[in-house]
């Protein structure tokens, strides 16, 4: 029993670390990030990962060792100790400091991404509407004003220019939804009754060979991450990132489509 239990406890840190070590090659890892603030978030993630890994291995390791060593049959009495003040101080102060370091290192990134005062000054490029169970993006159309007859409505597809600050306003038509693009490290709940400004800037373009290809049109999944009903699982969208030139081309196409008189699809 003793050996078996030790082995089981030993497997916890070993397999625990191994699954994280091999995660990326198995596809169990975060997708590569392409936004300007993505690397900041990743840095914080890794900072915590290393600290957590250290304490994980330390505590689980000690647990394994103590269970193994002190479960040996022994009729003598154990150590009569009610504690050790110095140790208590040590393992209060040191983790405390580390935790405060973690806490304070988060603040700038959080403020940068979410504080209203830090929103880029560009006008919103679109209003994004979440509803049961559909993402729809509304662009201002040729007149440049939202809410007029020539607005361009794009179901499912949110096309944005790269290498620019993109601001959009997130709405919900009915219940709570959430706008999540994993590759952007961006998430924001859509709340009915609120119009929430969100920003990002895609400044990386990685094609299949890992090379930079700014001319490629890149697609990123948009996922709803707040339960919105039975169709929550299929409320998919796509963010399509194009160079500014190609974005303008696409927008011109859409605006022309709005002005269509139906001839082109009459074949």
């Amino acid at each position, binding site marked *: 029993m003793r050996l078996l239990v030790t082995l089981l406890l030993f497997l916890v840190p070993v397999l625990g670390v191994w699954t994280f070590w091999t995660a990326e090659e198995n596809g169990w890892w975060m997708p590569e990030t392409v936004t300007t603030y993505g690397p900041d978030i990743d840095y914080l993630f890794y900072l915590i990962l290393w600290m957590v890994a250290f304490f994980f291995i330390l505590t689980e390791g000690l647990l394994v060792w103590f269970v193994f060593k002190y479960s040996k049959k022994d009729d003598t009495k154990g150590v*009569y100790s009610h504690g*050790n003040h110095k140790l208590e101080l040590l393992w209060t102060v040191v983790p405390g400091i580390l935790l405060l370091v973690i806490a304070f290192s988060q603040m700038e990134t959080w403020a940068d991404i979410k504080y209203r005062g830090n929103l880029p000054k560009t006008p919103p490029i679109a209003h994004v509407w979440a509803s049961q169970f559909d993402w729809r993006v509304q662009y201002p159309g040729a007149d440049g004003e939202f809410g007029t007859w020539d607005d361009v409505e794009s179901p499912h597809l949110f096309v944005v220019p790269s290498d620019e600050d993109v601001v959009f306003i997130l709405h919900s038509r009915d219940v709570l939804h959430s706008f999540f693009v994993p590759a952007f490290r961006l998430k*924001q709940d859509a709340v009915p009754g609120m119009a929430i400004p969100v920003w990002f800037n895609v400044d990386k373009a990685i094609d299949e060979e890992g090379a930079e290809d700014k001319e490629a049109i890149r697609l990123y999944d948009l996922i709803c991450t707040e339960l919105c009903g039975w169709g929550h*699982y299929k409320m998919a969208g796509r963010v399509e990132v194009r160079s500014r030139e190609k974005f303008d081309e696409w927008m011109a196409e859409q605006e022309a489509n709005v002005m269509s008189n139906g001839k082109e699809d009459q074949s």
Partner: protein
Amino acid sequence: MSVPPIPSEGSSAASEGLNPRAPEGQRKGLGAEGTVYIEHDHHELSFIKKYIFSVDHKMIGLQFMFTGLVMLGLGGALAMAIRWQLAWPWTEVPVIGELLFPATGGAMSPEFYTMLFTMHGTIMIFFVIIPMLTGAFGNFLIPLMIGAPDMAFPRLNMIGYWAMVPGLFFAIASFFVEGGAAAAGWTAYPPLSTIKSAAPGSMSGQTYWLLALTFSGISSMAGAVNYATTVVKMRAPGMTLMRMPLTIWSLFIAALLQLFALPVLTAVSIEQILDRVAGTGFFTPTNLVVNQVNAEGAGEAAGGQPLLWQHLFWFYSHPAVYIMVVPAMGMASDILSVHARKPIFGYKPMAYSMMAIAGLGFIVWGHHMFASGMNPALGMTFMVSTIMIALPSAIKVFNWLGTLWGARIKLTSAMLNAIAFVALFIIGGLSGIWMAATPVDIYIHDTYIIVAHFHYVVFGGTMFAIWAGIYHWFPKMFGRIMNERLGQIHFVGSFIFANCTFYMMHQIGLAGLMRRTADPYAYEVYAHLQPLNEFISISAFCLFFWQGFFVFNFFWSIFKGQRVGRNPWKATTLEWDAPSPPGHGNFDRELKVYHGPYEYASPLVDEDYLQQTRSVN
């Protein structure tokens, strides 16, 4: 008054639970230390009074335990259906498929899936973990461990159990109403939960859900009042606060958490009930139309905020998770100490850290809402408090390790489960740090990393602690011991399968898969996670069926288990002074407490344990 000798075990007087030393007619006095409740006459209680509407804390504790175990089976079955769908979506579900979904060839419907995870979470939290830890163990152990004859308010205690029963009724009945059971998640965010047209479960099932929660809350409040009063007022002479076992500290702290947090949940549940049935609009924004139905039609009010529910709900529900985990920590501490034959390392830090966890637990609720649209400045404050709450938990982990160092560990079933508690709580606690970091939480929120985290703390933590508690205190409850071999087999399988089930959810979450999804592979990008989900599901099925060892062991041992005396574990705390099982009034002699609860390996005596009630001159 002459003092008759202490009756030996097995004598009828002791087993009847009567105190033969007490003078006739002496009534109990609350607040007078050292008084003992006396049965004022010798009548035999009727079956109903003894087993159904009992006012005896031990029987009430057992009622909570049995009910909790049955609901654990139900909650687990719901989880099995969830896991089937995640591994093999839209295929014929075994057992229930043909019965419920003949038109689709046995494949479940998407709305059924939303109902599954909602009720799984609700049942597990409100009808399994909280009743088992605070209801069962709280009731059973508090008077025994502090040397009291019963709770301060025995009748209120009974009402506490029976108030939960209508809650059970509503929870189970909700499956059979039109539209099915609640389907808005156990978090029940409006407007999905308040607008009847938003989800099938929001037609009637959600109202039943709210009623179930309200009754469960009444039950918990009754218990909390009792526990707090009993611990403050009814400790035996010599039992100072700093001589109480950590189990009692933890249950006392949990009771205080209940007292301060639960009224908020009750209030907000009533608000949601009113929104649903009385046309109020606490959570309904203006001009809301869901699924073609205007929320303001037929004179219903609006102008409310969905975020209001989130704030108030989490104001309770975050302390709720500490209500669950703190008693588990307390029990695990005691069990570790007993079976390691060594005092708890750092008793005062352990007690203070539980208080810190509880106190901090009131100011962290916003970490569930970082992405919710609330003012981002709040994200900053909640982040700091949430990250700091990791500190007392870390202190506890180090102290548990300190307890094991230099110990003489006996690998009994109880001990195995308590050690597993520590190992798995470490994982759950550490993953919490990522979530506390607000920018990182942008990615993590509502993904499977959250699911992994809370299953590690609730299953890996509280469930293993519950098993440890059952193995450990079963002899006191029933006078018999559970079979050790079966206990070890149960442990090994549960440990392996629990880790196989929940660990890989971290990876799935890192890949970005969102929670509460009926079909992960609706997104091409997650198609490669199917083998992993299959592995998890198979582990989950094995975990579920492996509990057969425990269930068999538990019920068989009640009737056929090996009989034991008062103190089979050679433990020091007061409950082991009473007969196994204790009768009315619990103790058959006057108690006085001389030492702390963890005098193991004491140099003062030859044995490796020194009971709290034993005086050494």
